[in-house]
Each structure stands twice: as C-alpha cells, then as structure tokens.
C-alpha cells in the first residue's frame, strides 16, 4: 500500500481529499476506510455517501472505530434501480440508540447529491468532519467520466473550504489505468494497494 501526495501538497498537512484505490472485494477497502475516518482522531461528524452500498453496511464496517453516540452520522443515500431505499436501513439496529440522519436521493442526481453534501458540510457542528464517498465506481455506472470529473472539482473544493477531510473509494479492479490517471489530479493524495486483486 502506498500513499502518494499530489504536487504542491505539504507533507506535514492532512490531505483534504484522498482517492482510495482498493479492490471492492476483500478487506483492504474497509481497513483503509476506517483508517481514513480516524486520521485526525475520533471524528465529530461523519458524512457518508452510499450508492451501491447502504448506510447500514457502512456503519457496520465502522463499528470498531466510530462511537455513534458521540459522532454525528449523516448519509446521503442514493437509491436507484439496483437497490431499494428500504435496504439502506439494514444494520441500523444495535447502534446504541444513535440517531442517524439519512437523506434519500432518488436516482444518481449529482446536482442533488452535491447540494445535500455541501449543505451538511456547512451545517456540521462537531469536528473533525469526515466525508466518505462510496463509491466513484458506482457513480461511473451512471455518469460519464467527464461529468464526474467536473462534479468532483466542485465537491473537493467545498470539502477543503469547510476544513473537512474526505476520501473517495474507487474499485482498483473496475477501471482501466487511464481512468485513475484522469481522476488522480483532483485529489491531494491517492492511496493504492501494492497490487490489484487477482
């Protein structure tokens, strides 16, 4: 696993926006997700974006590192033909009575996803504020690389302006090398596994 900083990013600073390139299948993705969530200590606010996954699934993966009573948890959950909104509630039981704010967005509407995320970034009261977007691979099933690139330009800027830190998952096995080369300049750092899954 390597952590590459983009040119111009101070190595002593926590990168605001990190591209997390891991195989979608296997433990690496979730291990690195947990590390990225807690880079600056226990997060005060976590904003998740789920597309093919659900808020419940993400919370289950975070159960060892996030205390849902002390951390404000919010999700922008994108429901579409491949997964119903009802499934997004999976795993919410047993979270010690945590209140989780879930905004459902029908279809992959980047304008709406962006508006919801930026509103939540502006309204976050407890820091550190951490964003987890799961995943760019899912969004690329519905949007062109060019559109996603433009969308991420705005989103990464808003994350930095809000003094938040964000990571964006992408399947290491799901795209040609050129896609990674095109997306990488959007981020302050890229985390890659040493090898792709076979």
């Amino acid at each position: 696993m390597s952590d590459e900083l983009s040119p111009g990013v101070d190595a002593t600073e926590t990168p605001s926006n990190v591209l997390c390139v891991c195989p979608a299948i296997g433990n690496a993705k979730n291990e690195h997700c947990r590390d990225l969530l807690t880079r600056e200590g226990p997060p005060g606010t976590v904003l998740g974006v789920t597309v093919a996954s659900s808020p419940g699934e993400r919370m289950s993966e975070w159960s060892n590192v996030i205390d849902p009573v002390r951390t404000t948890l919010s999700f922008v959950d994108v429901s579409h033909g491949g997964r119903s909104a009802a499934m997004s509630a999976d795993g919410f039981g047993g979270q010690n009575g945590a209140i989780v704010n879930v905004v459902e967005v029908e279809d992959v509407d980047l304008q709406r996803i962006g508006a919801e995320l930026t509103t939540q970034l502006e309204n976050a009261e407890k820091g550190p504020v951490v964003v987890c977007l799961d995943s760019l691979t899912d969004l690329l099933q519905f949007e062109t690389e060019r559109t996603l690139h433009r969308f991420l330009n705005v989103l990464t800027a808003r994350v930095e302006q809000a003094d938040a830190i964000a990571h964006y998952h992408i399947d290491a096995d799901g795209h040609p090398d050129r896609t990674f080369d095109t997306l990488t300049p959007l981020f302050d750092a890229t985390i890659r596994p040493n090898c792709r899954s076979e």
Partner: protein
Amino acid sequence: MASTQDAVLVASPEEEQRLSITSVLRDHWPVRIATTLDGALDSLDDSIAVTVIDESIEGAPSDLFAARLENELSFQILWLGASEGPFADRAEAVLDPARVEDQSLTIVDRLQRRARYDRLLTRFYELARRRGRDDEESTAEGKPAATDAELDSLKRELDEIVAELDDEDAFEVALGDRQTVDR
C-alpha cells in the same frame, strides 16, 4: 484585466437598449453588438463569454441555445426581458430591461465567473485525460502530455474561482453540459 475570452455580445434590435447596456459594460469587458439574431449567431466564437439577448429580437432564440450546444461553446446567456417564459427559464440569468443601469454589471460579472469556471473545468479535464499517456500517443495526437505542475496550477485556479461561486452556480456550471459528448 480583460482576457481574450471574456467578450460580451449584446444582441438587440433597439438602439437605445444597446447603447444603455454597452455603456455600462464596455469599461469592463470587450463588447460586440448584433442587431439581428442571425448577426448574433455569426458572431459566436470562443472569445464570447456572455451573450445578452433582447426578447424583442426577431427570430427563434432557441437557435442561440442550439448553436452553443452544437459548436461546444461555453458562453453564458443573459435574457434581457420578462423573467417568465421558456427562454428566460433556459437562460443562465434574466435582466429586467428597466434595471439595465443598476443590475447589468453585477449580473454579467457573475456570468463571467461562471463562463471562466466552465472553460477551466473543460481545460482541466482535457489535461487530466492526457496525463499518463506515453510519448508515442502524445506525438501521434500532436499534444504533449500534461505535467503534474500544470494540473496542480490549474486546480488551484479552479479552487479560487469556485470559492467565488455559490453552490447552485458551481454545480450548475459543472453539470450543466451533460448533453455534450465526451471528448
């Protein structure tokens, strides 16, 4: 300072209206004038950032929107007329003809920022796509591969501009051209 890509095209058949708006704008940006819709369409090129179109102009204003899409131009459209109607809804901004003197500068300035952001987003994506292509591919295309320093500089410029746009403008500009083909 004005760049070569921030001209404003004012298309209006009314001389008084043209004079009124150009007198406000010409100290800030290069201004071109068209008195007919055909004249406006003939004037469109990469140097136009904002087109002001008077609702009283003869012809189909939809041609202006179509020309923008077909020619992959990124100018912003300011509808000079009533705030309701199909063309007012499609334009990026609407200016009440009675408010030209006190509002046109503010509105065109905002549209200039949107146009600049759009151009830079396009440039950044094109450079990013070229990143990582080997020398052979770059030579074949006649375009050198982008360096990380170029991309980093452009990203900083983009971040500065987007900080001056509100969320609605920023996402609208970024996502507003999904009908255009990927290049």
